[in-house]
């Protein structure tokens, strides 16, 4: 990493995080607090015949809640946004007459402590009558398959199509065309801290405080308020320290409602901490998509048409964030390329599995993998370089602004700035990148692979901030965002210090608490810089004007001659003896300029007008593959990344490297597996594989800064771009290592994660010239 520059101060949050002073949900201990456990379905699909909790009550349970005990079963979740094609199918708070996936919450039991709660949970007698499980998309879409929900005809929960131009016609007429199938396995966002909730209801004030491991504290507040009949002002959701989210905590979960309801029933604080077993089976999964891709291309290597059909295995319910990943797959399927004819159809199919929702990238890695690996095949067919096929199709500065015609919901986006051909060139030259494989002294085949990824940021419009100065000169930034460790307490302090003209050290940032500001959203979908930081900039700018107006009066000066530097008011660029703290004192009650206002403060809500910000990254992965075994290593990794203006280069690098490492795990290790009966096969971290340090290569990043025109700070989101292109780059590298010219063996590599056994099969396929469809291809259910 580059030496620390003035834009990369040490992170304000790290001292408490590194010295064990952070307060995660399980660190909350309240007077009279009791603990609960969820009793979850062991069956993938069954009717609930009866539930008998008498023995558990006799053994000391303070409360056992089942759906029959809930007074709010008819209430609906408050959702931020909903695709019109969704045909209902939201989860109940607790399973009612039926369970639909292993891990679905059926009852909640509260006891004096967690040990006792787990012991007596075994005494709750639940009788199930098994129903035929829908264990796969193929079964779900087969004629006569049992329906998961009455509204889901053919078990289709949602379905939509986007198109422009005439993809079918162009493909039919094209001499050059390619058709391939891809599968992206079901994976888990896997934060270090699982979900958790401490609900504390104060009956005297009718006030509910919930300490929660969430990315989405305001949405949870809205749900608690509506479902539990409390006014929003009387619900406070606190998520100050959250140990990672990666998309898994971007929504309200039924458990949060139930734990809060239990606290209201008992009049005592109730804690529930999700254990890792629950985290793997009952926190939303992600990815889980099959794609059929067809592309047409001409002799010059120009992609003339793209047609995709995507099937998303969404699991048993449409979860509370809808079908966001399915929508993003459609929006980003053409990548950073000019393709004039595109058609994409997306079908969301229900199965008896854990519901899916977002995971870092949220549809963007899923969209990238088919396109970027198919491009390498086209390049081979045309005998041109992988760099060249991309160079010939990529959007150029002269094409900008290049408006995306595939946007979703109310959002729009355009490639508005950036030099993509230059970024390609930077990735492919001077980095060691080569399209000629070599054999090393260990007998491994060594090759590079290339892929481009587009990261859209700024989803879910509006974010809030408030900045104030106290008489001692301390500046406090309040933000409606939440943090799971991304460093917003540092970057927001930097933005405020720079905009307002005060010292970074004199700025403190508070966030992750709905009590701070009446409105906010949270830390998800790469919103932190594009929405959150711009809100801080807006509030700081407003406050700066206020400070200068007061200072002008105090100094009897023309306001135009004043500025603020290091917290001191300057006149004509030289310091006065007036500080921002003294300005604050002057307008405080009793001060010379007291106007009746509470304090020196300014609020601002940033409105992006629902315009997303797009950023490109170009990835080059080098792999070493051992032909005899199929085992492989990622030995070098290069990223050329456009983050727009980097507020803090050190944090940008951390985010991009973290994303890349996460992406390598996604590409080669992680897959959650179910059997045909809907039973989860790898529900512990002994079996579900996550990347660890020894598997991670050094990641080298080259930054390209093209200021985004979509927001005042000129920033682009960085939370997800590190991951998006990784699986494609690795798959392309492995395919090239096996054979740099032949086509067909890469079919064995068209499922993520790529395992050594698949690579071994790809070697065999290349050797024998036999290119069978991968075994899962037979499960493709459409036509």
């Amino acid at each position: 990493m580059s030496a620390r520059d003035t834009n990369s101060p040490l992170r304000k949050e790290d001292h408490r995080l590194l010295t064990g002073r952070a307060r995660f949900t399980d660190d909350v201990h309240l007077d009279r607090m009791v603990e609960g456990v969820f009793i979850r379905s062991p069956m993938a699909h069954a009717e609930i015949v009866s539930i008998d909790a008498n023995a558990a009550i006799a053994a000391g349970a303070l409360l056992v809640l089942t759906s029959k005990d809930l007074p709010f079963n008819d209430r609906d979740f408050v959702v931020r946004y909903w695709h019109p094609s969704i045909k209902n199918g939201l989860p109940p708070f607790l399973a009612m007459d039926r369970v639909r996936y292993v891990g679905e919450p059926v009852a909640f039991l509260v006891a004096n402590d967690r040990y006792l709660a787990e012991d007596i949970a075994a005494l709750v007698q639940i009788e199930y009558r098994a129903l035929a499980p829908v264990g796969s998309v193929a079964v779900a879409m087969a004629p006569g398959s049992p329906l998961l929900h009455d509204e889901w005809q053919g078990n289709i929960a949602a379905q939509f199509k986007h198109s422009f131009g005439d993809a079918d016609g162009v493909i039919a007429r094209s001499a050059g065309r390619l058709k391939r199938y891809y599968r992206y396995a079901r994976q888990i966002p896997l934060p270090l801290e699982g979900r958790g909730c401490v609900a504390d209801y104060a009956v005297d004030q009718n006030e509910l405080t919930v300490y929660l491991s969430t990315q989405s504290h305001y949405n949870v507040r809205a749900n608690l308020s509506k479902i539990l009949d409390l006014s929003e002002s009387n619900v406070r959701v606190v998520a100050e320290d959250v140990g990672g989210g990666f998309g898994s905590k971007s929504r309200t979960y039924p458990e949060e409602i139930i734990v809060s309801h239990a606290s209201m029933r008992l009049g005592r604080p109730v804690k529930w901490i999700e254990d890792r077993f629950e985290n793997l089976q009952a926190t939303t999964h992600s990815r889980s998509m099959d794609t059929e891709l067809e592309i047409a291309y001409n002799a010059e290597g120009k992609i003339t048409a793209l047609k995709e059909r995507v099937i998303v295995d969404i699991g048993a319910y449409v979860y509370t964030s809808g079908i966001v990943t399915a929508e993003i797959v459609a929006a980003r399927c053409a990548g950073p390329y000019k393709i004039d004819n595109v058609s994409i159809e997306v079908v969301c199919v229900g199965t008896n599995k854990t519901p899916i929702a977002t995971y870092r990238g949220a549809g963007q890695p899923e969209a990238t993998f088919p396109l970027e690996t198919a491009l390498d095949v086209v390049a081979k067919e045309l005998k041109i370089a992988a760099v060249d096929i991309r160079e010939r199709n990529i959007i150029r500065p002269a094409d900008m602004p290049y408006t995306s015609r595939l946007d979703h919901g109310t959002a729009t986006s355009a490639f508005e700035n950036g030099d993509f051909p230059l970024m390609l060139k930077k990735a492919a030259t001077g980095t060691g990148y080569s399209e000629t494989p070599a054999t090393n002294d260990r007998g491994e085949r060594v090759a590079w692979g290339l892929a481009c990824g587009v990261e859209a940021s700024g989803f879910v419009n509006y974010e809030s901030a408030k900045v104030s100065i106290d008489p001692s000169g301390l500046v406090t930034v309040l933000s409606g965002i939440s943090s799971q460790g991304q460093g917003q307490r540092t970057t927001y302090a930097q933005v405020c210090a720079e905009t307002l003209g005060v010292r970074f050290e004199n700025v403190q940032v508070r966030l992750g608490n709905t009590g701070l500001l009446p409105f906010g959203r949270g830390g998800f979908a790469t919103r932190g810089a594009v929405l959150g930081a711009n809100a801080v900039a807006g509030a700081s700018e407003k406050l700066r004007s206020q400070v200068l107006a007061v200072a002008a009066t105090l100094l009897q000066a023309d306001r135009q001659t004043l500025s603020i530097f290091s917290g001191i008011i300057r006149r004509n660029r030289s310091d006065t003896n007036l500080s921002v703290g003294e300005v604050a004192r002057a307008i405080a009650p009793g001060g010379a300029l007291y106007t009746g206002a509470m304090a020196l403060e300014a609020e601002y809500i940033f409105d992006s007008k629902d315009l997303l910000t797009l950023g490109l990254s170009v990835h080059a992965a080098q792999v070493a593959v051992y032909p005899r075994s199929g085992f492989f290593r990622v030995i070098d990794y290069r990223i050329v990344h456009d983050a727009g203006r980097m507020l803090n280069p050190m944090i940008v690098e951390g985010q991009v490297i973290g994303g890349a490492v996460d992406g390598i795990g996604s590409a080669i290790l992680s897959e959650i597996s179910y059997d045909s009966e809907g039973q989860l096969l790898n529900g512990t971290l002994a079996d579900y594989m996550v990347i660890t340090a020894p598997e991670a290569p050094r990641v080298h990043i080259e930054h390209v800064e093209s200021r985004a025109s979509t927001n005042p700070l000129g920033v682009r989101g960085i939370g997800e771009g590190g991951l998006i292109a990784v699986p494609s780059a690795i798959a392309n590298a492995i395919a090239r290592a096996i054979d740099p010219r032949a086509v067909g063996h890469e079919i064995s590599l068209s499922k993520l994660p790529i395992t050594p056994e698949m690579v071994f099969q790809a070697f065999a396929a290349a050797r024998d010239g036999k290119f069978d469809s991968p075994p899962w291809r037979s499960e493709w259910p459409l036509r």
Partner: protein
Amino acid sequence: MKPAPFEMARPRALTEVLDLLSSHSDAKLLAGGQSLVPLMNLRMATPEFLIDLGQVGGLTGISVANGELRIGAMARQKDLFDHPLVELHAPLVAAAMPYVGHVQTRNRGTAGGSVAHADPAAELPLVVTALNGTLIAQSKRGVREIPGHEFFVDALTTALDSDELLTEIRLPSAPKGARVAFWEFARRHGDFAIASAAVQLSRLDHGIELKAALGGVGSRPHVCRELSEAFAAGTPGSDRVAKLIEHEIALLQPQSDLQASAEYRRHLARVSLTKCLQQVVT
């Protein structure tokens, strides 16, 4: 993920352990806890009585006597990692140690705990089998010596009786100039093997002694007997070695699971054994 209620004894003397084992037929021994405690937290194991061996004296030593390396059952895996006696007398153990778990698990995990747990994909059971060490089992009834080739009965099952405690692992000292090789295929560093091989080759006055075993490819480590017999009769040529390897591979009964198909496991065992033999023969 909280264990079910259980009682626990923390004896300090071996005789106390043996008394407790004879009076509690369902007792489980806690010898590092790197496998047992997660199983208990998942409630996949719900022992009612636990005997913690952590305080028992005399079980942690590593020494050499009578041409054998003697490893106390409660020696931590980290102690095997860079112990000079282990490197000198059991270089095959030293070669296997980097593949055993992670720093954190090696700090707590014990040699005897791993061997008595008898995971068929674990490294220590594999080298104990390859070297045909001797496992010392004690009970109130007396002391028993169990040959390594007979100790591992099935997956997670050993020849120990319910009142017996594994107290020591004895490995024959490697002859001077012994060459060893250990190879393992695992998706991540520190994982259990998909397939692994442990080989030791010594040129003795009366001929070549080859010790070899395969792990991860059956319910217990596989001893490559015929391979060893062939080497004892004189170094076979490379074609013959390839045939002998195929013979051993044909005897394996690996299972298909999420990590690998049975067929691929068999192939990885072939590659592992071939690599190890190439390393020790050349």
